[in-house]
């Protein structure tokens, strides 16, 4: 019911094309994060007004180091700060730090093992205490504290010997070089040592229900099940905030969410966004800005390679040919998402643009199956050597658009003698062992492949990453190709960007050929906001629309 939306956009490079639609606000400016942005001159001197963000899921986790979902990120970005921020263009810029560490500026040692971070000296916590390097040290140590229920530990578990050199300088050593760590730190919110260090159990500290941060907004009040109100922090060290109140309103029903956007009760449609069926109408609304924002997530049908039917490449090819993808995108999804052939986002430098394009051709699909020896048997279902061309497709219950796509594909498959049954499961069941241990036949799923802007996908496609066999990894399709294994290993060792491009383009070509999953489309969200809301910018390198509410203001 709740997991229809895309999981995580990752740190993918920002989509270059942002399709603006009618309704004003054409001059959307890219706010530079270092210098004073041009529009700041028109922003009010005093924070004024209120912005209500409508969300279809309720933010409930306010300790951002603990496991949480997208909507919680929006709150975290407003209350807390990170050492660095990632811009919509994919650049990393300093936030609590004064500069991004590089070998040139002495922040990084040549081997990438020793880090030195310089911090701002003008930052205070919402309770008035001064922010120092001790807070950073405490945060990094808390994440790897075995008693703390930390969210992501990858990268952090490589950090050793954290040393506070001065209140504004901290150093540490990495166990091994790990370039994506800068990107990871862009989502690692710094928590106050002076409050949490004395907490009996950081997992259940009162802090987690009324957090104190350094961010542009302070904790205000929360009406559970309905809304969360944050107040402007007048002492914020960065630009903004320009609004007095930031409200996250929980509206579980997508119709009501849209209705309230239309009526003006909410100013910005957040997570889960405007449903595609309302896109056409939303575009025509007065005083509303509606935009399409591509994400790094790919919707596809995973084919479990352990299944005998899917081991025949002709079957996988025929199944891809028999999907009327254009109709799914244009009609079921109202033309909102984009076509895609690969897991790599188009905006990534590693994207392979020369992949064969999908075509919908039932005759070709049928003849392909005929040639491969799959001949119609009982009830018109094809079979070969006693194996029926029949399989189940699963997704989460309550994902209406996916259910529609499933049934549509089911019908076209039936026309070429392929039986696809639909066996959907509640989210908690679907994403448990059923998915993790590859117990499905085929699954309709939206996946973000990249962590950071790094193209490494070993975790998704290497034959060592099949959890059902080795116990770890996310190669849920159980895809195994020695050539891809070799290329993935090469890619992880290679530092030369041009050479890496070659490697990853090759990988994409092989995977497009092998079809362990059938690509359906690239996720695209329909953002909507009131026309007067300025300073807003979508950032597909974060998981939330509210990644930089500090810059919002009413023009």
């Amino acid at each position, binding site marked *: 019911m709740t997991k229809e939306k895309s999981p995580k956009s990752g740190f993918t490079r920002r989509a270059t094309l942002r399709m603006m639609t009618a309704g004003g606000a054409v001059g959307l400016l890219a706010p530079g994060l270092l210098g004073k942005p041009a529009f700041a001159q028109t922003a009010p001197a005093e924070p004024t007004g209120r912005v209500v963000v409508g969300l279809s899921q309720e933010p409930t986790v306010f*300790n951002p180091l603990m496991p949480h979902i997208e909507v919680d990120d929006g709150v975290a970005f407003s209350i807390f700060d990170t050492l660095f921020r990632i811009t919509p263009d994919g650049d990393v810029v300093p936030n609590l730090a004064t500069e991004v560490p590089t070998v040139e500026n002495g922040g990084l040692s040549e081997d990438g093992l020793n880090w030195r971070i310089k911090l701002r000296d003008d930052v205070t916590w919402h309770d008035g205490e001064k922010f120092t390097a001790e807070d950073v040290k405490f945060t990094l140590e808390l994440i790897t504290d075995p008693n703390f229920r930390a969210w992501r530990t990858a990268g952090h578990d490589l950090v050793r010997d954290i040393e506070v050199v001065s209140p504004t300088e901290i150093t540490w050593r990495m166990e091994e070089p790990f370039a994506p760590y800068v990107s990871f730190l862009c989502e690692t919110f710094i928590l106050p040592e002076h409050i949490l260090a004395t907490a009996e159990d950081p997992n259940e500290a009162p802090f987690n229900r009324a957090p104190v941060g350094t961010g542009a907004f302070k904790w205000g009040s929360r009406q559970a099940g309905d809304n969360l109100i944050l107040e402007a922090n007048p002492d914020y060290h960065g630009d903004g905030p320009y609004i007095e109140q930031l409200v996250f309103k929980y*509206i579980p029903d997508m119709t009501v969410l849209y209705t309230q956007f239309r009526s003006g009760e909410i100013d910005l449609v957040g997570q889960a966004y405007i449903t595609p069926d309302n896109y056409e109408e939303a575009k025509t609304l007065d005083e509303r800005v509606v935009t399409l924002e591509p994400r790094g997530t790919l919707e596809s049908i995973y084919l479990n390679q352990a299944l005998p039917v899917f081991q025949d490449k002709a079957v996988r090819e025929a199944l891809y040919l028999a999907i009327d993808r254009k109709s799914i995108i244009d009609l079921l999804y109202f033309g909102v998402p984009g076509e895609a052939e690969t897991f790599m986002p188009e905006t990534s430098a590693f994207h392979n643009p020369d992949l064969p394009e999908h075509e919908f051709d039932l005759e070709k699909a049928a003849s392909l199956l005929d040639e491969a020896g799959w001949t119609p048997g009982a009830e018109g279902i094809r079979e070969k050597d006693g194996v029926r061309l029949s399989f189940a497709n699963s997704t989460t219950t309550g994902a209406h658009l996916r259910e529609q796509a499933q049934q549509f594909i089911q019908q076209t498959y039936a026309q070429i003698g392929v039986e696809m049954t639909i066996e959907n499961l509640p989210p908690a069941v679907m994403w448990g062992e059923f998915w993790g241990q590859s117990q499905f036949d085929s699954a309709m799923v939206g996946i973000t492949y990249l962590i950071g802007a790094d193209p490494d996908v070993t975790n998704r496609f290497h034959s060592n990453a099949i959890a059902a066999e080795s116990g770890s990894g996310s190669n849920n399709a159980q895809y195994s190709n020695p050539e891809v294994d070799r290329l993935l290993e090469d890619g992880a060792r290679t530092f030369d960007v041009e050479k890496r491009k070659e490697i990853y383009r090759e990988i994409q070509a092989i995977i497009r050929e092998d079809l362990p999953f059938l690509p359906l489309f690239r996720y695209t969200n329909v953002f909507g906001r009131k026309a007067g809301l300025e300073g807003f910018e979508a950032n597909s390198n974060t998981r939330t629309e509210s990644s930089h509410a500090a810059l919002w203001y009413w023009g």
Partner: protein
Amino acid sequence: MAAFLFSRFLQSAVLLVIVSIIGFLVLYLMPGGPLSQYALDPGMTQEDIARITEQLGLNRPVHVQYLDWIWGLVQGDWGTSFRDGSPVTQVIARHVPATLLLMGSSTVIAVAIGTWIGIRGATHRYSGFDYIATVGAMIALSIPTFWFGLIGIYVFALRLDWLPAGNMYTIGDGSVLNYLHHLILPSIVLALVHIAIWSRFMRTATLDAISQDFVKTARAKGVSERRVVMKHVVGNALLPMITLAGVQVPSLLTGALVTETVFTWPGMGRLFLDSLGYSDYPVVMGLLMFSALLTIVANLIADITVALVDPRIRLA
């Protein structure tokens, strides 16, 4: 009386234990679990998920977890929500007011309208009004609450734009009027079934009372029909009314759950569905226990009141 109370108390305790065991087994033995929502998070590794599972103690045998949980429950510790880290009692407490507001206002509507229809139907027996009320009550009992809600939203919110389609109040406007505006549709929707039940009940009660001797006497004395009805009949029917109110608590809760879903009302029903969706077992169990407790207490109070007032009822 003490013996009666004691035996009822014992029964309730046994019942609660049974409910808790069934609920616990069902939830904890189902595949997947609270961490499956992170399965697609690219930054979370299998190791992270395994670590948190262990930290939450979810890898322990189910009977150990159950004993742990029920021992905490006995001591007043209902556990901690997986999702928001607050104690379950706090999580539930935060959602109780919204549900009480909805249940309360719809009960007022149901009792008021139901009583009026019931008495009028009984005093004008076999009239057109009585017939329509009878048939209407049966239809009202047959309409799915959520569908009635959807139709209400379609007509009054989407088409006529008179009433809001959901939520409890508008952000930035906490006035009583604003709350009332949001309350109208959901409380009427929730009240529908109960209007039917109350009106049928009041009709029977009034008919019973009218046929009794003292009412005939009063009428013979020349007291007006209206006064007789108001004074004796309603007074007499009060007792069974209390019982009925107690008995209706579960159905009100059920209705509230559905109504809250349709109207995005931030109450316990909404919380229950959300918690199910996130596999937040402690909260789901807490709500199961809370609703069972509420029902048992309501029934108990009704039973005791009746027993205290009516000596004819034998206490088992």
